[in-house]
């Protein structure tokens, strides 16, 4: 992340095709970081669906990815560390017409906010959670995350990480998410297809986007610069169809990262069920 909030928009960005959708002066990410790609993928999809800023809201927690909400010209909320999902739940409950998208980091969503993630998936609240997984706490200086691989060096695992990581795909599936996908951040076409599916699915959607942090992760583990790290990741990517979620390997040591869509379910969403509860309450009228 670039430690300044006073970035000016460079000349060449003034003609950016999404300039009406984006706050270009709030792109504070390191050049080469895929967080920007994820942001533009989301806006591309919103644009394609013909949504304007009254149709959607973006919520993020805290972290490098947490700063992404500021890049949207939409009702955008930069909340507290880990609490983007319950905040988004409130928005959705209050206005079920809204497309509510949570965009946050792996630490935010699965360490401090892990409890909210599993419960939101279980409830099948109709929001889309997009996790930028860089296997590390980017913002705070590259500490170990619940997605860091065993043996990896981070600023708080100088001798190598001893804890196994979550597999976010099987976690999401087991928690009840009705759409679950994983893509490398550079594969914007597939990513966008998944975002569009999520916008259309009336349930809890989860998309894991692999976006290596060359600043905090790459340097410490000698994986090279932004481009070299992408090359390194690209070699490991295997796209599979019909892979069950618990088999969705993400293993840097074996050099296997399985990407694809893992869950596509239809289950009645929370706000729909809430509507039924209201009907029931109004017809029965329990005595106060």
């Amino acid at each position, binding site marked *: 992340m670039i430690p300044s*909030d006073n970035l000016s928009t460079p000349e060449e960005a003034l003609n950016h095709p999404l300039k009406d959708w984006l706050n270009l002066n709030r792109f504070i990410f390191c050049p080469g970081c895929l967080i920007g790609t994820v942001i533009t993928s989301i806006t591309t999809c919103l644009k394609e669906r013909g949504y304007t800023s*009254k149709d959607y809201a973006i919520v993020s927690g805290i972290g490098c990815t947490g700063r992404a909400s*500021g890049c949207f010209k939409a*009702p955008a909320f*930069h909340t*507290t560390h880990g*609490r983007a999902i319950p905040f988004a739940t409130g928005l959705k409950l*209050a*206005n079920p017409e*809204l497309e509510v998208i949570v965009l946050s980091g792996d630490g935010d969503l699965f360490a401090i906010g892990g409890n909210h993630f599993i419960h939101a998936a279980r409830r099948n609240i109709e929001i889309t959670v997009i996790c930028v997984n860089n296997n590390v706490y980017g913002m705070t200086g590259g500490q170990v995350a619940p997605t860091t691989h065993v043996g990896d060096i981070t600023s708080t695992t100088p001798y190598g990480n001893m804890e196994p990581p979550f597999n976010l795909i099987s976690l999401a599936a087991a928690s009840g998410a009705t759409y679950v996908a994983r893509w490398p951040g550079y594969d914007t076409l597939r990513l966008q297809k998944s975002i569009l599916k999520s916008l259309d699915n009336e349930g809890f959607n989860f998309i894991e986007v692999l976006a290596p942090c060359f600043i905090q992760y790459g340097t410490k583990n000698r994986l090279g610069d932004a481009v070299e790290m992408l090359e390194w990741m690209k070699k490991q990517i295997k796209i599979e169809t019909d892979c069950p979620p618990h088999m969705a390997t993400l293993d840097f040591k074996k050099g296997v990262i399985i990407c694809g869509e893992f869950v596509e379910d239809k289950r009645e969403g929370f706000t729909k069920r809430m509507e039924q509860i209201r009907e029931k309450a109004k017809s029965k009228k329990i005595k106060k």
Partner: protein
Amino acid sequence: MNLKQSENDPHNKAILTSGNYASAEGAIAAGCLLFAGYPITPSSEIAAYMSRRLPEVNGTFIQMEDELASVACCLGASYAGTKSMTATSGPGLSLMAENIGLGVMLEAPVVIVTIMRGGPSTGQPTNASQSDVYQARYASHGDYQIIVLAPSTVQEMYDLTIRAFNLAERYRTPVIVASDGILGQMMEPVYYHSNFEKVERKKPQVPPEKYKPFEVFDDDLVPGMAVAGTDYYFYVSGLTHDIEGNPDMTPEGAETLIKRLCDKITRARPEINDWEEKYIDDSDTVVLSYGINARGVPEAIEQARQQGHKMGYVRLKSLWPFPDELMEKLGRQGVSKVIVSEMNYGMLIREVQRFQHLFEVSGITIPTTIPFSPKFIYKKMIKEV
């Protein structure tokens, strides 16, 4: 006791109910349409009541996974234009702290009812206490002001919950109703009247293309609030921000924002602060109390006056921002001593002690779970004078 309204009502609409239910019904009367909470004794009846009532009025009840989520959910709902509320007790309020700060920073109207029980930690879940009056004021880190109301009767659980919503909307801030385990649970006649004004938040004062989420046009320092689902777009952040919502890490940025957020509340003290008083223009000594523990005071004072003591009382209905003006008034009226009576080891008394240049301050401050009886207060009082 504030039963006059029901007594005067031709239809005598008073019903017998508990403080927790009255608070929940007050929320609905004020226009609350979303409750997100996590059960905790002695507040749980509020959640249970809301789960039954809200769907009937097209509202939403959701039991969240914890109290952090509860406040976050209410803030989200608030930013989609829905009046929202949560209820809890000490340990839950501890968990809510960080997102109360977010509510202050995002200037999101939201109501939090806390039914105080004994602490620290798990403390005495089924007993009453007044030991969270600082927690209500200072829950979150950072330099901020917040509004805290303190009901004394079941009727006030209804009335002050309504007022909490109105103040939250008026000043775009979280408002806390600090009640306690006895008041929450006990039954009293209450009149669910509708003779009050429903306050709605200030709308954006400029068209969408000119809108800046924290731009202030009025002396009250309250910016107009856009919500999601309209033509307005905006970025709001828990980071220190400028009027456009851009993160602002300059020293001036901090000073400007913090001052406005605090001044917005403190300047409004005359509007926010509310208390009941008796005999203070004819008193040397005044007992100051609030909440459940104030209920024994009037009888003790009457007894003292019958014995020829020049004594009066004030009962605070709002605790924060602290009513400095009331203290100054007591000083002006020649009160020479204020006795603070509270069910904790001395909390609000420290605020009163800021006015020791005006009058002497002493306290009946006991970290107990049973409100002080009139007899007990009388005995303590007389010893003091």
